[in-house]
Every structure is written in structure tokens, then in C-alpha cells.
């Protein structure tokens, strides 16, 4: 009979993923980078 509880590795994976996602999101926002995609340059590709 399989254990109906969520495996420990899945819980650990979810926790690590959450931490990394928050870190990545924070870096994204801090860098003003791709949060507003395409807002870095004019349509011709030149910087504003």
C-alpha cells in the first residue's frame, strides 16, 4: 500500500522553489529589469 502522505522530497522541493522564486522575483524587481518588458529601449532599439 502506497503512503498517502506527500513525500518529504516534494515538500523540500516546494520550499526551496518558493525561496528561489521569491529571491528571483526580488532581483528582477530590484534590477528594474524584465518586470516591464520592452520598456528599456525605444522601438528602434536605442536606449531612451
Amino acid at each position, binding site marked *: 500500500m502506497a503512503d498517502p502522505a506527500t513525500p518529504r522530497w516534494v515538500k523540500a522541493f516546494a520550499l526551496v522553489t518558493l525561496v528561489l522564486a521569491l529571491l528571483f522575483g526580488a*532581483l528582477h524587481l530590484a534590477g528594474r*529589469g*524584465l518586470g516591464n*518588458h520592452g520598456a*528599456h*529601449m525605444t522601438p*528602434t532599439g536605442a*536606449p531612451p
Partner: protein
Amino acid sequence: MILPPWLRKLTLTAHVAASVGWLGAVAAFLALALGGLLHPDPQRVRAAYLVMDWVGWWVIVPASVASLLTGLVQSLGTRWGLFRHYWVLIKLGINVFCTVLLLVHMQPIGQMAQAAAHMELSGDTLWDLRIQILLDAAAALLALLVATALSVIKPQGLTPYGLKVSSAARTDPAARSR
């Protein structure tokens, strides 16, 4: 529907080739992003961003879509299923997430290449954008390495749906293929 063995092997080969190709292409992309950020020669920096756009559209995007499609065929066409095992479900999540993020981020990469074609990218020109492209490539590489490890290790663990299907299969063998 369970695939016949020859078709299962064919799609498995295609899935491994697309997935490992995607991983390798992202590693090359990361090297270009690093070179584009740090190399002192402005001409090489421009070349790096121009190549990144091509590699993105001609290798990484097709590989990601092929990996997703062949993965779906593999899981739905075998007894692994798509929602029965945690490792398959997590791999699906990684694949979909990375593919969507890649498609979203191809626009700024294209703009970066367009800028590289028209101007010199030295010093801190478009620094924030270059940093973000590097971070995205590093994050994608990490996610794809995790997906590769899950494919090789196949850690145990059935989802609630998998448990339901598994217990149904014990009472009704015909339910195994559903």
C-alpha cells in the same frame, strides 16, 4: 492510450534529445550573456547579443516546445501518466514555466540584439537589462538541471490522483490504462 514500444522509444529519444539540447543551448546562452556583460571588447559584446537572439529563436525556443510536446506524448502514452507521479508533475511544471518565461523574455533579448546591431555596447550601457538576461539564463539552467535530475532519479511518490488510479487498478485491471 498506451503507445506501442517502437513509438514509445521514438518519442523517448526525441524527448531526451530535445530536453538535453535545450539544456546545452541554455548553457551556451549563459556563456554568451556572461561574455556580453564582462568582455572588454565592444565588438565581441555586440556579437554575443546578436548571436543570443539567433540561438534563442532557432535553437532554444524550438527545443523547449519540442521538449514539452514530446514530454506530454511520453507521459500520456505510457503508464507513467501526467498527473500520477510527483516527479512527472514537477517536470511538467518546470517545462511549462520555463517555456512561457522564455517566450516572454525573447522580446527584450531581441531588443538587446537590435541595440547591439545599431550601437556600441561598452561599459554600463543597458547594464540592468544585461544583468537580467544573465540572471534569467542562470535560473533557466538551474531549473533544467533539476528537471534532468528528476528524469534520471525518478523519485518515488504518487499524487492523490495517482493513488486513486493505483487503488482503482487493483480492483479493476482495465483502469490501469485510464
